[in-house]
């Protein structure tokens, strides 16, 4: 029910504000609606997304944390596990019951002990190491495998764009 979801989100917000993981900021876009957050994620160092600050939107269901939130990057992204509209496809965001790909073990799926922080950290490691199995963006997956240099160039452009630096 919405009441307990609200309390839990407030607790998570507090924790993320007091002990923010490095390179990650997250909180409600507008406190009128605690179920819509924006997160800023810094691209992990030593990867092609290094230095970029990527904004993403998190939409929580009323029965959070029983069901996972939805996450969507609001900037342009090019990554094997991110759909072209920005939606993120990682196992931690999938409810235990549904399995669109049919290969994930339920171990990596959503469970109420997961949290916004864990999701965002998983996304950071996803940016560093794309998961070959899930083909949310087939073009990106192919380029990642076959033409890493061009992939890095595109990533570089995206990084510049997120920083507001002309390419």
């Amino acid at each position, binding site marked *: 029910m919405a009441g*307990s979801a609200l309390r839990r989100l407030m607790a998570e917000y507090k924790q993320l*504000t007091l002990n923010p993981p490095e390179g990650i900021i997250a909180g409600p876009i507008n*406190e009128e609606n605690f179920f819509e957050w924006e997160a800023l994620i810094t691209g992990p160092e030593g990867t092609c997304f290094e*230095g970029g600050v990527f904004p993403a939107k998190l939409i929580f269901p*009323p029965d959070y944390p029983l069901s996972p939130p939805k996450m969507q990057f609001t900037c342009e992204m090019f990554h094997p596990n991110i759909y072209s509209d920005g939606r993120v496809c990682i196992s931690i965001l999938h409810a235990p*019951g549904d399995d669109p790909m049919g290969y994930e*073990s*339920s*171990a990596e799926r959503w469970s109420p*002990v997961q949290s916004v922080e864990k999701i965002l950290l998983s996304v950071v490691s996803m940016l560093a190491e794309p998961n070959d199995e899930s083909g949310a963006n087939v073009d990106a997956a192919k380029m990642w495998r076959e033409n890493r240099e061009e992939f890095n160039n595109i990533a570089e452009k995206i990084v510049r764009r997120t920083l507001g630096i002309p390419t």
Partner: protein
Amino acid sequence: MINMAFCWLILLGRAVQKLVFGELRVSEQQQLRDKFWNFVFYKFIFVFGIINVQYIDEVLLWCSWFALLGFLHLLSQLSKDRFEYLSFSPRTPFWSHVKLMALLAAIFALSGFMLLVSVFVGFFGGFNTFAFMSAEVVLLAIRTLHIIIRYALHLYDIRQESATAMNTSDEGKAWEKRGPISYYTELSFELTALIIDLIHHLHMLLWSNIFLSMASLVICMQLRYLFHEIQRKNYLWVRNHLEQNYPMATTEELQNNSDNCAICWEKMDSARKLPCTHLFHNTCLLSWLEQDTSCPTCRMALNIQTPSPTQMEPPELQADPQENTRRPFNHFFHFDGSRYVSWLPSFSVEVSHIQAIRQNHVTASNSQLDAMARQVQTLFPHIPLSVIIDDLRVTRSVELTIENVLDGRLVAPPIFRDLDINQQTSRPLTLLQSNAEPSTTRNWDEFSTDNVETEDTVMLGSRFSKSSSEREKILHRRKENMIQMARRRYIEKQKAAAAAAARSDLQS
């Protein structure tokens, strides 16, 4: 006369909308339209397909009855939507709660009145008419009451929260009491509503006698849907299983366990213990087990077998647009013990991976890096702070960085020369520091402002304001800071790279 009545109804609707809801949100309008057409469609089928009325008076009577009923239905639906919306936001004016509550109470009273009318009509018109009329009214009443109770619980909740904001120890107790109450009201109301709806539809099907018409087809679909809903609601079975097999944690165990409930993140005054020794609030655990029969923390499978065949395919939600908004529970009770064995090792790997990242963050947060960097800089003042910080990010130790400096691996970037920079990298610089002359001293000034901002970020990060507008402001500033810092770091790196390229050009 009839037209007049409808006009009055619409006017009344407008007035209520103005008074209670104000401007309707887009999703509410959408929902309202859907519900309205759905209602009209079903009632059309009912009047002509099932009752099969012959006389125009009868049609008119039924129509006005349903108009009133539909009107109340829509109002209660609207208040439900609005309540859910209001409960999403922690600060809502007190008055909007009062208005909504008053409206809900009025709907409830009116539905009681309509029930009396249907009893009265049934007295003359026979049992079937009574059953048809009252079923809908009772449904309306139950749904409204459900919303009222949910609302009351929610309000109680909010008041508790503000009352116990100072001492958090009471909060757990309030939740403990509230959890089971909301859980069981939810359960009993939904179940009763579904059962009445089911009986009502069955009744219609039997009454209509036309098993192969469109009307009965539609009703069959609805019936199938309702049946599934009821089947999915067998929480009771899960609860029994839980109570039989997993004991409550003893007070001793609770004392030893200092963690909060992993599902709601709140304190546990009583808890249920799973065989894997993980503790949760009873109600938190129940609501999770409806979706998935494994321990939320370690994913150990619990041997809950299905009491009835629920492996059936999920109901086609399209069959009934009325219920489209309901979130489908996926694979209720679907569970296969063997498939949990193979993943166990891979899971532990993932967990430790995430924790490793976290530990890194903990050991070297920004402020610590900063302090470490200053320590190094007191020894080597000629090396810019940012270079030291960059190196510290890699080494994570003052000693190693000092060694790097001594070994000459860490050098101050050569003097920045405008001439040697290619177009691409110089453009962003002019963008940000339009009047900055690229010289070393300039750069150093910039580094020192960098430091100030880092401290600012740290300061901002270490507080969680009680006022929501202040929280919003702080969050906004933190975000801006982060982007600014990232931009600056990026440009510095570009500069360094360009300078390095220039140097190698000179050498060759």
